[in-house]
């Protein structure tokens, strides 16, 4: 059966990027029609640089099936049923940037002599695809700490060069001039013509010219030979010549959207089954000018060290953009029909970072989300917060075993992380605490969990949640924010007293007079 994608298949989405339209007739056909039985499983890893801003990322309440996605997760909330949100991944104090990019796919930053899991999985599932794996990125090398620029490592633990240009990737995947039927024809006629030109020159040439022309003609002849030896690509179910080459030269957003297009297309056409993609270097100093942000990402990511209310808003814009790109990838993987399901159902996407808290670089509560069912290996629609902090290596070992890699240890881990396939785990249990609120005259005292506003554009507004009542709103100045260290207590239960009033249904505190942690937690004294 022969299927072609014509350029109408791609329409401009609202984001301005090329989006494949699902469910057109020709998309219904699967890329590998003859291959009944199990469809191939794919693996993708999407790296978010510079950790997260925990108050907006962390889920503080909820159980395996009943949990509320946090403000930062909003852009991919619609995929909740296809996600397995992991929490309490990472088990030690501090990570350098270079360590955190190594950790993302290698289990542990000291695991520097073996391949990262994408490469091991590629060996297992790559089969006879033309590209066993692809390693992609957005920015250049950071030679000051070279490890910051790589997440994929070969069998000796050496970094694998990455490619950032969507056109180069497109051409590598779909545009080999020696097998592309149209280009073969063009090259053949071009060779004829330049051959003629060179020969006519050579009739008039002096000895020195002759030598150069001989070299030139030799290369022309060799290319003719190569053209004859290399057969035209067999016209499979998809005619690659009809695919539209991405436009280059756009913003970071255009570049990434094009690359996400290509990732999905490469997977769907079975050009590759394993791709890693870095949205930025581990300590990225990119400037997101297309979001109206003028500061370097790394500077903003140290949101405590470089605190200002506007910096937080800018940082959250940058982080939200990363989340939107994860959403973009999932949208694409869902839009491709693959055998009897979608491409996402036959894929595992690992999205996350190598550190948790972007300011103090802790390797705890690292953002790690799995998407897709991988043909049944992952049970999605769940939130798993493990009782103990889990080494990243255990997650990687579990993934390797799910992909059928025969190994019982990886990246310093000897046991796989339980629960990915629905197996039982020990859940984290928070100590119970009461929530209440008292309002006397102008003094309000409230006990409950402190959290940041859901609206990321007003990151200086906080709330204290009280069961059965509207949350108490904190509209306080920087002085109070700083003196009572709200950033530290964010996400935890507190007892807070302050001055305020009732505004409609909502109690609003404008000045804090006292703040205590319910469980007596205290921030360190050192300056951040």
């Amino acid at each position, binding site marked *: 059966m022969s299927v072609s994608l014509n350029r109408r298949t791609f329409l401009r989405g609202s984001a301005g990027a090329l989006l494949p339209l699902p469910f057109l007739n020709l998309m219904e056909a699967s890329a590998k029609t003859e291959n009944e039985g199990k469809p191939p499983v794919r693996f993708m890893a999407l790296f978010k640089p510079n950790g997260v801003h925990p108050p907006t990322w962390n889920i503080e309440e909820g159980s395996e099936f009943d949990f509320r996605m946090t403000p930062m997760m909003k852009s991919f909330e619609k995929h909740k049923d296809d996600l397995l949100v992991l929490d309490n991944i990472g088990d030690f104090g501090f990570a350098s940037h270079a360590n955190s990019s190594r950790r993302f796919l290698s289990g542990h930053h000291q695991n520097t002599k073996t391949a990262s899991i994408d490469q091991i999985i590629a060996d297992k599932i790559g089969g006879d695809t033309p590209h066993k794996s692809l390693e992609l990125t957005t920015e250049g090398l950071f030679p000051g700490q070279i490890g910051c620029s790589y997440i994929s490592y070969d069998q000796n633990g050496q970094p694998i060069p990455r490619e950032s240009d969507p056109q180069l990737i497109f051409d590598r995947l779909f545009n080999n001039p020696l097998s592309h039927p149209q280009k073969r024809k063009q090259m053949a006629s071009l060779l004829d013509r330049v051959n003629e030109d060179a020969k006519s020159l050579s009739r008039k040439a002096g000895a020195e010219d002759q030598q150069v022309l001989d070299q030139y003609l030799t290369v022309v002849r060799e290319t003719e030979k190569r053209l004859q030896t290399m057969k035209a690509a067999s016209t499979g179910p998809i005619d690659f010549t009809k695919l539209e080459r991405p436009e280059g030269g756009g913003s970071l957003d255009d*570049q990434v959207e094009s690359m996400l297009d290509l990732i999905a297309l490469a997977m769907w056409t079975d050009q590759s089954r394993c791709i890693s993609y870095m949205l930025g270097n581990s300590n990225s100093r990119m400037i997101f000018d297309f979001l109206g942000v003028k500061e370097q990402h790394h500077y903003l990511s140290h949101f405590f060290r470089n605190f200002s209310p506007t910096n937080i808003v800018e940082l959250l814009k940058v982080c939200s953009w990363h989340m939107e790109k994860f959403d973009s990838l999932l949208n694409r993987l869902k839009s491709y029909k693959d055998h009897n399901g979608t491409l996402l159902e036959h894929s595992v996407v690992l999205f996350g970072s190598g550190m948790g808290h972007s300011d103090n670089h802790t390797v705890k509560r690292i953002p790690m989300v799995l998407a897709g069912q991988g043909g049944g290996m992952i049970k999605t629609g769940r939130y798993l917060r493990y009782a103990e902090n889990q080494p990243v290596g255990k997650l990687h070992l579990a993934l390797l075993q799910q992909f059928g890699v025969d190994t019982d240890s990886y990246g310093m881990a000897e046991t796989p992380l339980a629960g990915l396939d629905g197996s039982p785990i020990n859940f984290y249990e928070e100590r119970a605490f009461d929530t209440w609120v008292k309002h006397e005259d102008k003094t309000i005292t409230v006990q409950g969990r402190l959290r940041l506003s859901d609206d990321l554009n007003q990151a200086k507004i906080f709330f204290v949640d009280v069961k059965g009542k509207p949350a108490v709103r904190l509209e306080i100045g920087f002085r109070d924010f700083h003196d009572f260290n709200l950033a530290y207590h964010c996400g935890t239960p507190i007892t807070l007293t302050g001055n305020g009033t009732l505004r409609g249904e909502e109690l609003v505190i404008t000045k804090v007079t006292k703040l205590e942690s319910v469980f007596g937690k205290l921030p360190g004294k050192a300056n951040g």
Partner: protein
Amino acid sequence: MRFSLSVLVLGVCLSLSFAGSRFALADEYAADILPLLKKYCFECHGAGDEVNGEVDFTKIKTAAQVDASFEKWESAIGLIEAGEMPPEDSPQMSDVERAIFVEWYSQRFVDSVEAKPHVFQPRRLSAHEYRNTMRSMFGFDLEVDIIEAQQTVVEKSMVMKLLPTDPRGKSGFRNDTHNNPLSTVIWDQYSYLADNALEQMFSKRRRKHLEKITGPIAGTGPTFAQAEILVRDFVPRAFRRDVDEQKIDQILARLNQADKLVPVLKVELKTVLMSPGFLYRGILMKKIPGQQLVDDFELAERTAYFLWADMPDAQLLSTAAQGKLRDPDVFQSEVTRMLKSPRAMNLAEDFATQWLSLNEIRNISNDPILPLSLLSQPVDFMNYLFTQDRPLMELIDSDVAFVNPNVRGFYGKDAKQMTAYRKQKGIEREVVPNQQIQLENTQERGGILTMPGIVAMNKGPVLRGVWMLERILGQHLPDPPADVGQVKPNSQGENLTFRERFELHRSNPTCAVCHRKIDPLGFSLQGYDAKGGYILADDYEKTQKNKKTVSKKGEVIDTSGKMPSGEEFNNFYELKEILITTERETIIRNIVKKTLSYALCRELKLHDQPTVEDIVDKLNKNNGTYRDLIHEVVNSLPFQETIIPGEKL
């Protein structure tokens, strides 16, 4: 009596034809020189177990080999005249023998050498030239999609990313591509790059570039008439010369038959970009055997690739097409115009960077901010010398510096001349452009030799001395023997300085030949630490009663030395004085040779020597500038003329 004989032979030779004098001189080599070499030189240079200093005289047998080794003779004569060769512990030449050698050299390699141009050799564009040429052809750069952030290293140019790095040719420059043949790998990359450029040319994104040539394009693509305009513009520019009307007609005829215009147009233009006339320089010049002026288009091309590493622009091409380029005034004003173009930055960025090995500054730190900040200084400085018409010797002696905030610490009070730099909020580190300042309090930074990046990239006195000898004084040094070992630490009871221990270490006469020249130069820079910092005390001169230089910390630092000529100096300032007086001509000669060699894209030959000497002489006498130098080079015989081998018709 040998002397009078030589003079006699010379007199006879001058009346003979060129070929005849060659023969007679070759004979003299066998009769007079070979016996001397056998007697004094062969043991260490060819006939013994080891070949010292990469010089093997036993391999020089034919007259052609004698000629080809002229640089070897030049340095041999220098060593013999200075009494450095044969080494002290070997039998010495008599004065008469020495005079025979010197006389033979000057007859054969100075007096009797006739200036002549080189045989015409077409050569492939270097990757750098190809990048610039494609940019000029299309009006936009071929770039890779990659985000540029501070502190990262990015190859933004698709050409430089995809084409293999050109090896340095025999001249030491990468534009000397004579021994860098085309391969199928490079062919595929050319094909890919041409496709890419043409794809872009007809895309919406690049429409305005295309319209600059064709005029406003209505609808989806150019009309046939616009395609014709494009072809008539594109093809002669690609070939850097007028093209037969017949060739254009053939292309237009094929376009005329096309169902769809743009795809056929792309194939036609790609064929041009893949043909020898585009990829090779000089291959389309009409070749008539004999010595001759190169044609006007070739002259335009030579000039443009020398100054810009790029194809001639529209004005230069049309001047050539009108046959006006040989008018000296027109040529002069074209060259002056080209030097004012921003593209002339190429002389600093490509030529000077290779000549002075400036890219080694990139290796001094992993964090690119500091190396890039340090590298930009000599590049901007060299651009200033080349384009602001500065005297040649300002390379060594200048009170102008180009300084950016990341290196301001090296410039003390003088840095106050810079307009204040305020880092924008949220920018942690960044590379900032240089400002030109006048050195009033930090003269220790004047000239190229003591720029922070230069002293930092050459670690230790040996590398600094070698760099100065090779890059500034133009001497070629052989590699040291592999088994030199380490400088020994003081043994018990010994209390020698590093310099004294080092001198013991290399006291072996074989080593001493080169190190006598290297070490004084290198140790004169001991007032600069490994990071390029200046460590001498402010009043180092007052404290040097016993001729010792003192550091800020009060340590005695031996910066003194003695030149092979016998001149002595106490510190770098005195050395600098020697460099700009005694060594002035040597330095000018090196500048001339390097520039001529880059301009010609080849190593210099014996028959270029008269041209070199002629230019050196003029510039030395007239206190010439870099602009004078450039004008001399583009008007020189080897640049203007060529020889096409073969029978005259």
